[in-house]
């Protein structure tokens, strides 16, 4: 299962929650599959989806799901210790771990070689770290939401991309629409 198939499968779960989506293809895919005001698309700034999601979860009560990638988490590895030490039980970090930098042409990441992000998260002090297959993402995500506990989900899946257009929405429109959904 590749990332776009996973996003399509879990769109019904994501739809009810605030979603901070990683730069590049993940945001483009989510935008194409189910664009709505509760989605915050990152158009730049690789690596910060998990940090933005944590800040958002700490600031208000609604459930926040950050959709991140293995390459992006590697670029901001400190985030896992910040998350572990600032628990927000309305926060779920979902790392789609396809072992490659999808948006730049599927070059391998170190997560696709020796590095195990789920073990890094545990070593950082994250208390609920779950690894699942792409096929089980929806069920795992729903269980994490229902648990009311901050959870890190590492989804192991295949690398691969579909062709799709870039997001042309104005960033301020994305942000303003999202903030209204947060406050709603």
């Amino acid at each position, binding site marked *: 299962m590749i990332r776009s198939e996973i996003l399509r499968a879990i769109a019904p779960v994501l739809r009810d929650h605030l979603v*901070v989506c990683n730069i590049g293809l993940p945001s483009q895919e989510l935008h194409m599959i189910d664009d709505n005001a509760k989605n915050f698309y990152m158009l730049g*700034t690789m690596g910060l989806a998990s*940090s*933005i999601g944590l800040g958002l979860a*700490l600031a*208000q009560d609604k459930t926040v799901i950050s959709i991140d990638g293995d390459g992006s988490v590697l670029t*901001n590895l400190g985030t896992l210790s*910040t998350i572990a030490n600032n628990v927000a039980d309305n926060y779920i970090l979902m790392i789609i771990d396809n072992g490659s930098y999808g948006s730049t042409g599927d070059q391998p990441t170190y997560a696709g070689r020796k590095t195990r992000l789920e073990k890094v998260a545990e070593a950082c002090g994250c208390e609920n770290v779950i690894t699942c297959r792409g096929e089980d993402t929806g069920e795992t995500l729903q269980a994490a939401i229902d648990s009311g506990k901050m959870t890190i989900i590492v989804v192991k899946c295949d690398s691969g991309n579909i062709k799709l257009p870039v997001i042309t929405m104005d960033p301020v429109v994305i942000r303003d629409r999202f903030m209204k959904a947060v406050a709603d």
Partner: protein
Amino acid sequence: MSIDRKIVDDLVANDISFVTTVPCKQLAGVIEEVEARDGILHVPSNKEDEGMGLCAGAWMGGKRPAIIMQNTAIGVTINTLATLIQYYRMPLPMLISYRGELREPVACQVEMAVHTKALLAQLNIPTYHFHTQSDADELDAILKYTFMCNKPVAILTDASFWGGYGDQ
């Protein structure tokens, strides 16, 4: 009143309730004060770009944020300032320890000090420089300005402002 308390009082008076920090000797008193205040959620970050991500999320969640860091962080955060804070038009007061200015004992700090204002100017970031303690009288107005215009704003505080580096 201590300058540390005055600064944090101004943050609180401007409804700032989410502060991220990266450690600094000169800003240690302010950071301690931030940690002690009930009305402020203090989330230390490992790196300043991560901190700006936290601030962006907190602001979208309804809390006014601020970041406290050293001027070397400008080198670390240019991409984040341009593609997140400025691109999505978000307010972010940046209280910055301006190392490498007069009375600096560490030569390497000067290497980023000479680029600091030029980089901030290149990014069109409104920049204020506190050199003597009375300069901090403007902090309240600077914070109001930041949340009026939804921009990152830099407040550089140099060694003279903090009273030097002690015995070094």
